[in-house]
């Protein structure tokens, strides 16, 4: 892991999932910062301006969608790439997520490559 690797902010209230995503992203060559809830995710996103923000939708305090809205409302963070992940996988949920301004929506459970490929495309795409 080196400092030059792109920084990914990963937020999920389920520690097992958070650890799993972190491991997979680190193996794919990224630096990962973890956030256990929405508040922390928003603070870290503002502070670190990560290359990609991976947000779980259902989190305590601030939900992923609320964090996303806050990021989009702020000029400093408006351009951040955001991936919403959620076990709510109905079309309406996906639509809501994309309408809220997410760049992508992944329904849990997903395979590790689905996430790492998506992140890679976003990072490479600039």
């Amino acid at each position: 892991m080196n400092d030059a690797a792109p920084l990914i902010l990963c937020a999920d209230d389920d520690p097992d999932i958070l650890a799993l995503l972190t491991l997979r992203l680190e193996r794919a060559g990224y630096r990962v910062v973890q956030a256990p809830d929405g508040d922390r995710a928003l603070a870290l996103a503002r502070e670190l301006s990560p290359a990609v923000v991976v947000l779980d939708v259902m989190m305590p305090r601030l939900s992923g969608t609320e964090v996303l809205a806050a990021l989009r409302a702020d000029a400093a963070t408006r351009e951040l790439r955001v991936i919403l992940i959620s076990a709510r996988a109905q079309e309406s949920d996906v639509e809501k997520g994309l309408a809220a301004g997410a760049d992508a929506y992944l329904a849990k459970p997903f395979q590790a490559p689905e996430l790492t490929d998506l992140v890679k495309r976003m990072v490479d795409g600039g």
Partner: protein
Amino acid sequence: MTSTPVSEPFPRRAQIAVPSRASIAYLAAGVLAIAVYYLIPADEQDVWYVVIGLSSVASVALGARRMENARLAWYLFAAGLSTSVIADAISGYYEIVLNRQPPVPSTTDGFYLATYPFLFGGIYLLLRERGAIRTRVAGLDALIVAVAAGTVQWVFFVEPNLHAQGSAVARGVEMAYPTFDLFLFIALVELVLSVGGRVVSYQLLVFGVLFWVIGDEIYGLSVDNYVVGGWVDSLWLGSYVLWGAAALDPSARMRVYRDRREVPRLTTARLVLLAGALLTSPAVILVEHFWRHHSPHPKAVAIGAAVVAVLVVSRFAGLVRAVEGARAAERSANQRLRELDRLKDEFVSTVSHELRTPLMSISGYVDLAREHADAESRTYLEIVERNAGRLLALVNDLLFVARIQSGALELELAEADLGELVGESVSSAQPHAATNGVELNLRLAGGATGVHVDRRRIGQVVDNLVSNAIKFSPEGGEVNLTVGAAEGFVRFEVSDHGIGIPEAERDRLFERFFRSSTALDRQISGTGLGLYISKAIVQAHGGRISASPAPGGGSSFLVELPARA
């Protein structure tokens, strides 16, 4: 004669019920006795009259002794009929011994008048026992009838006696009969409206009371023309006989279920009754005008009409209020249902979340563990992985079924080509088929295969049918897929040479959770939801899905979707 107490609800509809043998026998004997009454000399008639009356008292008392409920009512009837028979006997004594009619008033009148409170007291008890007079509305109906009938009684029977000659007591007695008859009439109406039409015993009772009242009224209209042994006697004698038969019929012992409705239904009978009450006053005026040419009674008729009108209006006002109340209750119930529906959707969504998150952890970590596992552990982990996948498929299916059930199956319709959709499904199923050693053959039969469908959903149906066909095929088997057009439909057919479906089970194949015995015998895994879901999706598109045996064994599934116009 059946002597066991009958304990069952009475028939819902009025029907011609046949009285029991005991009461038929008594009725027949009674009719014969009445016929005899008209054939014998006058003096013997009086004795015979009392004999018939006594037989009635005996029958009612006998019946009452056997009653298990409402016994007091029938004892009251027996008591009332007894006093009437005593009056008959006294009257007969005057006729035979003193050779004249009893004067008015006399002890006879005392006993006759004593009869009435017993009779309508008994009917009141019966009605109360049957739960027929518990509500305000039932009381109001009775009151309306009372006022209307009271108007008639006053005008034709009571008021004329006010100005009649004779002592005050004599006039009082003459007025007491029609007044008591009024009460008996109201009791009669209530009896008809509640239980009278439905139980043999009560039907007999209704006719008994009716004969009695009609006899009294005819007598009242033509007191001066009354002769002992005249035809009017047959009404009173008939009443005795009917009363006795009513008590002897075992249906009197029926434990009639109480009607638990708060408000009696506005049956045709009740409507006719209310209309009759409203029309009483004009009818009285017309009768007075055309038939009886003496003193009209404008005040009595006007007051009667006014009171009936007010009562009927409040009766209907109550009805309208009740209906409005019911509507409001219905509205709030609907609101609650919508709220429950919303809660259910939320529940389904939450369950979805709660089940999928751990499944993600399971498959994610199993994936990681496999990297470091030896060959044996890897086999185990693959089993874990496969079962996690099955669990996920089950969760998804259940969620989908929940959505179908709640009617929330939404389609995103778009133009598509069914041949293309099937082609995609076939290529993605190819690895699975290869693993199972099954060959997939897709044939495009030609014709326009354009459809207007939700691509994802129809893809789901095709995937399901193809994976079923692979699952049920033997190794080295072939699955034939055909896409074609026919009569406004685009058809897609999947045939396998697998284990087939027993004919008896073919109809149930598309039911929720149904699994064919052949699948169960071979322990082929599945939830029994795939075809149910497929059918729901196809039907949501206005299409059809069916199963049939494939030529040369195996089964064939046909999906037909409306062709794009």
